[in-house]
């Protein structure tokens, strides 16, 4: 064959099986170009993993503090998105709010822990966040063409990372949670005395947050697959094809929406915290 691509048995030279010799592995394997440096990049490749890790770490610290605080999460008519829905008896009373005593009185810890597992699981298994924390925290790889420090790599083929495949189930729960946060946002059109037809700065904060939450949720890769991506014949399913197209447009901005919604949900919680602690009074528009 003129192209020289005819099948050959797997050999070291073919590279198909060539295990690294004793002198090195990966980019330092004996068959590869002998370059001592683990990378030759001259740009600031470390900036992305560093800022990603710092941003995610800051959110983890903040959300852990707020989730375990079990205080200052309600200031009528606003309920922190970290505590919604509130599913235990020890919830702060919220008139018309999302406090449904599902778990009863035996739950003595912060009620936020009951619900945060779902948005946490959604984001933890999200295809964008996987890239972010694999690069930022696990250096697998730290950046493109920068050798990773690990000697072995099995990716998402084994427990626990094979559980990333249940992302779609977290997506279903995330839709429910987004629905409840939408209900919370509607409730912000009340005043502190629960009268309807009012609006404050907090209403705007909640509106921005819920738009970003929905945009992030609907831009999810699993959502894109479920609404139409799994089909082979779009022409037989024009409605799902249209939905798939819309999800695709949102999906192109999934990373930006992931960060924007992460910041907005923390901002909404912090806004409620400031109101609940009396550090700030909600400016009312009408």
């Amino acid at each position, binding site marked *: 064959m003129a192209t020289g691509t005819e099948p050959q048995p797997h050999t070291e030279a*073919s590279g198909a099986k*060539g295990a690294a010799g004793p002198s090195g592995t990966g980019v330092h*394997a004996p068959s590869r170009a002998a370059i001592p440096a683990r990378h030759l990049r*001259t740009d600031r490749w470390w900036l992305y993993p560093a800022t990603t890790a710092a941003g995610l770490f800051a959110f983890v610290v903040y959300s852990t503090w707020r989730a375990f605080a079990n205080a200052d999460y309600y200031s009528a008519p606003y309920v922190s998105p970290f505590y919604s829905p509130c599913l235990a008896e020890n919830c702060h009373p919220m008139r018309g709010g999302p406090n449904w005593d599902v778990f009863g009185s035996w739950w003595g810890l912060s009620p936020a822990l009951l619900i945060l597992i779902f948005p946490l699981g959604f984001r933890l298994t999200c*295809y964008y966040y996987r890239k972010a924390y694999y690069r930022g925290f696990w250096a697998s790889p730290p950046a493109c063409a920068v050798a990773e420090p690990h000697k072995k*790599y099995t990716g998402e083929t084994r427990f626990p990372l094979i559980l990333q495949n249940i992302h779609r189930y977290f997506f279903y729960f995330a839709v429910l949670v987004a629905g409840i946060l939408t209900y919370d946002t509607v409730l912000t059109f009340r005043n502190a005395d629960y009268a309807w037809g009012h609006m404050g700065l907090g209403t705007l904060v909640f509106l921005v947050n819920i738009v970003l939450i929905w945009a992030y949720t609907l831009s999810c890769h699993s959502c894109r697959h479920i609404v139409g991506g799994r089909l082979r014949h779009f022409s037989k399913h024009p409605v799902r094809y249209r939905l798939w197209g819309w999800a695709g447009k949102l999906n192109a901005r999934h990373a930006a929406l992931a960060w924007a919604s992460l910041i907005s949900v923390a901002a909404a919680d912090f806004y409620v915290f400031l109101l609940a602690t009396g550090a700030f009074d909600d400016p009312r528009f009408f």
Partner: protein
Amino acid sequence: MSAQSDAYKAHFRIWRGDADGGGLTDFRVEVNDGEVVLDIIHRLQATQAPDLAVRWNCKAGKCGSCSAEINGRPRLMCMTRMSVFERDETVTVTPMRAFPVVRDLVTDVSFNYTKAREIPGFVPPPDLAPGDYRMRQEDVGRSQEFRKCIECFLCQDTCHVVRDHEENKAAFAGPRFLMRIAELDMHPLDAAPETGLDRKRTAQENHGLGHCNITKCCTEVCPEHIRITDNALIPLKERAADRKYDPLVWLGNKIRRRKE
């Protein structure tokens, strides 16, 4: 000519050697306005290093031959303009570091051809003769993006699954060929399911889809700007999840006896 007046001397470091060893060699070489890295490599061949080995063909970003690593980043030499570098910047050119080196900038990319042969090809529909295929544009649109691939293998080169772990080469097809599986699985006329070939399942079980941790380096380096991760690998992971990890989909398919 103004192009001549804009000429300057650039500092190049080029890896020279073979499988037995080698190192970076320094050159000072003339650069003119509008040139690309491959032009400079050719000038070096013409003026200073006539035995410098480099693989190239079209010089237009379409043949996928001149793949290399420029300042540590996998790129096509013919599509990397010299104007992206500062004039006093050292430009380092090495062969692709995921594949065995042959000589200088030439690597043995036969790993990719081995993997290509492992992917079962398009299965023609039994009731249609070639020439009778009719497909709607919306049904083939997704696959057409993947057909832009020029097989430069930069995605294979940058993928840390094989770049940093030689031992994974046996089990992992790499982004280019997982994209090929996605293309075939999305093909409206592929009759593989009728023959008992489940591409979704074999992508995970035989071609190492689970090794991919979607860190998107393949997408970053693709000179054709194919959204490999978002449009091929992640949809393929979702399809594999349909088959292997989603009891609701499995149950739904059983109840409705749905094939595709």
